[in-house]
């Protein structure tokens, strides 16, 4: 349980960090919170000749209000995301998903950018990012580019990031219309990897009909996935009617999944439990809308 030897680099600017990545290519790995990378190094599942520690790159930390939405520096700790007022108000789904990540000790070090760069298909932030059409800000020595979530996740642990590129920030737009958000997941033990999870946002128009549906799923495919069948079925429905049929609509998600069977759960179990969960989380999101409406 000891990592193989490596050269350690602690740049203090993004420019220096991407310079190191350009210099060392495949042999270098950025280290964010280390809550996934360090176990992998310790178990020798992977090794790198150069570790580029981002923890002293101060420009990569912090949350800023951005055009009605938020921009979150990639090194922002999960604990900071969890307790940030701007995020809770503008991107409630991130706020709701965060307590499901590991344990508080993990969230004290783990970062939002690390989760999204690692791209574990069972992790929370990638599913939220995909559901909300978030944007990845990616830097390299040749400049900065932006990649929408729909093009960012390529396969298990594989993203649009090239070895010489660095994820520096994430952007999320706030929803303008009245909306309900909910997140939940199924795991064997509290804090363990999710067998299946769902991140749901539902927006309604002035007539109370659903005009925006975002359903992200985790743990049920090689990448986070959108439940396109569920989203399509929801459009145009009155929120109260959709709420009554949430379980049935959720079951459509089984067709949008591509789960694998492993020691933790069979393919069939993930499909059934996952689609049941989608229905339940959809019900939770819709309940917020109907409660708000009756309160108003």
């Amino acid at each position, binding site marked *: *349980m*000891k*990592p*193989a*030897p*490596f*050269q*350690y680099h*602690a740049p203090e600017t993004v420019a220096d960090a991407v310079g190191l990545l350009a210099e060392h290519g495949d042999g270098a790995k950025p280290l964010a919170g*280390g*809550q996934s990378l*360090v*176990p992998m*190094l*310790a*178990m020798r599942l992977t090794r790198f000749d150069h*570790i580029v*520690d981002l*923890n002293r790159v101060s420009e990569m930390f912090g949350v800023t209000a951005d055009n009605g939405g938020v921009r979150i520096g990639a090194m922002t700790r999960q*604990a900071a995301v969890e307790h940030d007022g701007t995020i809770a108000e503008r991107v409630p789904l991130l706020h709701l998903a965060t307590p499901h990540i*590991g*344990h*508080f*000790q*993990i969230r*004290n*070090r783990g970062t939002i950018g690390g989760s999204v760069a690692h791209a574990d298909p069972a992790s929370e932030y990638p599913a939220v990012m995909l559901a909300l059409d978030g944007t990845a800000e990616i830097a390299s020595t040749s400049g900065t580019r932006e990649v929408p979530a729909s093009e960012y996740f390529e396969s298990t642990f594989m993203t649009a990031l090239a070895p010489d590129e660095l994820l520096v920030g994430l952007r999320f737009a706030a929803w303008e219309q009245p909306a309900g958000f909910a997140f939940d997941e199924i795991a064997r*033990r*509290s*804090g363990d990897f999710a067998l299946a999870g769902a991140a749901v946002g539902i927006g309604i128009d002035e007539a109370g009909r659903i005009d925006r549906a975002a359903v992200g799923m985790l743990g049920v495919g090689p990448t986070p996935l959108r439940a396109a069948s569920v989203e399509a079925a929801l459009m145009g429905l009155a929120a109260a009617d959709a709420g009554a049929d949430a379980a049935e609509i959720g079951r459509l998600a089984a067709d949008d999944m591509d789960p694998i069977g492993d020691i933790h759960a069979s393919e069939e179990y993930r499909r059934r439990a996952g689609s049941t969960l989608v229905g339940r989380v959809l019900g939770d999101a819709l309940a917020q809308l109907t409660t708000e409406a009756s309160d108003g």
Partner: protein
Amino acid sequence: MADAIPVSVTVNNRTRRGLVEPRLTLADFLREQALCTGVHLACEHGVCGSCTVLMDGEAVRSCLLFAVQADGSRITTVEGLAPDEQTLHPVQEAFRDCHGLQCGFCTPGFIISVAAFLEANPNPTDDEIRHGIAGNLCRCTGYQGIVAATRQAAAALREEQP
């Protein structure tokens, strides 16, 4: 072989300087160079919580940090929690009173985690306590004593700082 790097870490209010290979974990640095053997290592990959310490006041897994990363930081281990050699910290006292341990291997990690948890949430419900200790594994107690100890420690700490 990577070059050793000089670090200076404040461990339990004492400055510790050392030369560390980059791959040396903070946990191994604390045990082997700072001689804080209360930092226990079991899984060494972030699951069990035995090696939990406070880094700049926040509970972290010391097996998932490299010692080089702790350069310039303030670390508190279980050895540094009590005010002096004769007095136990309220969390330690509660674990003793409530049978919060049997073999004791996981205890230092629990003590640190519970101290940090109660700092953030001084008046937790039992459900919140169970979530608060979920990041530490104990194979002896069945956790009932640990929940009771956390409850008692919360009350004692609230009395200390009204």
